[in-house]
């Protein structure tokens, strides 16, 4: 049983700059920010290290932070430029009963995060979902396709982005009410 600060210090010792920050100010849970291209190494360490034993990934969520600039594009719709997309990892250890939250952020235009699919198997579909709905690309994922939306849904349109705009038609069916 370790608290977030101890885990952060151990990670810092082992990974140095790949572990970026610890955010303790949130009212409920501390969040450790990690380098998106090193997350699989951190994950592997967290899962196998004897003091950690984070053997279950409770949840993996892709988030559009919407912290970029709001601009109008050519046809007058609001879009967001710049900023980041994030992925939150909620880990839990069945044997040691502690929890931790990891976070990685990647630039919005070209969000690339290492896949943790080979660390925790259940990340597979969660990552596909994050790719489908938010548009985060997971490197080294074995099967990165859309999961919820149809496979022929418009390329590069990810519904859970804050600036998402509904298409008018899909296969001849009117989408808006």
């Amino acid at each position, binding site marked *: 049983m370790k608290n977030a600060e101890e885990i952060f210090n151990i990670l810092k010792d082992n990974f140095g700059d790949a572990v970026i920050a610890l955010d303790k100010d*949130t*009212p*409920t*849970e501390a*969040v450790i920010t990690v380098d998106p291209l090193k997350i699989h190494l951190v994950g592997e360490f967290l899962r196998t290290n004897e003091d950690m034993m984070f*053997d*279950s*990934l*409770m*949840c993996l*969520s892709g*988030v*559009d932070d919407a912290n970029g600039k709001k601009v109008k594009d050519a046809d007058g719709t609001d879009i967001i430029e710049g900023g980041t997309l994030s992925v*939150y990892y*909620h880990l839990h250890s*069945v044997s040691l*009963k502690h929890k931790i*939250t990891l976070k990685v952020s990647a630039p919005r235009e070209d969000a690339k995060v290492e896949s943790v699919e080979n660390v*925790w*198997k*259940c990340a*597979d*579909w969660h990552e596909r979902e994050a790719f489908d*709905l938010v548009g985060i690309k997971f490197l080294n994922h074995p099967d990165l396709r*859309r*999961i*919820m*939306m*149809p496979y022929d849904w418009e390329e590069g349109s990810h*519904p*859970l982005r804050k600036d998402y705009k509904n298409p008018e038609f899909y296969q001849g069916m009117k989408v808006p009410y």
Partner: protein
Amino acid sequence: MSLKTETMVLNMGPQHPSTHGVLRLELKIDGELVLDVKPHLGYLHRCFEKHAEAMQYNQVVPYTDRLDYLAAMGNNWGYALAVEKLMGIQVPERVEYIRVIVAELQRIASHQVALGSNAADIGAFTPFLYLFRDREHILSIFEDTCGARMLYNYIWVGGLSHDIHPDFVKKVKEFVSYYKATIIELDNLLSYNKIFIERTANIGVLPLDTAINFGASGPALRGSGIPFDLRRDDPYSIYDRFDFEIPVGKGLQGQVGDCWDRYYVRVREMEQSLRIIEQAIDHIPEGDVQSAIPKRIKPPKGTVYTRIENPRGELGYFIISDGNTNPFRVKVRAPSFVNLEVLGELCKGHLVADVIAILGSIDIVLGEVDR
């Protein structure tokens, strides 16, 4: 003599006779042997997470009903817990007790559908009828309490939408004593039926380490023999006050972690739920169920992840608040979504007919798989 056959791709669904909703399975089969299963989801993707971002916090509750529509109380509760944790609300004792009772009743009702449809898929139709008959009792209790049969919108952030009905305690007690006898009937009718055992024992064995690595939870995990239940291992609400056992798969009819174990864990869980209700029903304290409901729900900036034990497993809500009256992001960690991932692993090497038995024993609800 060895016959050389070509592998064939068979589509199961999205419209299919099994009662698990719109799921498409792409089976790769060699004769009758299943080599690989690829589930295709999204046929019921109803954009819950987008809706949650556009609603105020209390307006999201009716939408959470529609995630796992067989266990709407649990969904309401998980969401309410998350927002309460974010805002630091302490709910009154009375509310906690009522929540526990309705959630356990809901667990029974949900398992009844799960067991019934599992049996009906395999071919035993009578238990399906009996289980649905008993489910109507629970639904009528809920209807008295909050007015709806299936999608309740009952557990609100900080309280409940209605106080319990004057007849509630009496009706629940009647149901508990009635159902205790009926579970024995179910056991004799189905659980120990040799034909049913032949169809489910040693089928779809899920080893424990695979189950944990795939993140399986609920009866799917406990069927593999680990007593991991969030009600005890990560207690929320007032579950630490009650005395109950966590049924696990013991491999009574075959290997540990087969379909029969998962089925049997559900039956025994219904008994334990009845036990919890019995302990709680006499001790509901007096009080106001709406006293802790905030006038305006506006949580501080921050993130929260809470999880509760829903009938299908660990239901998690991840909420990011940016300090507004609408949530910034709500992500649901749906138990069925994660449990379904393991299907491919389970079906390998079994016959096509067993796929239905395995799917039934995992017990998915497409409403929360696709959200």
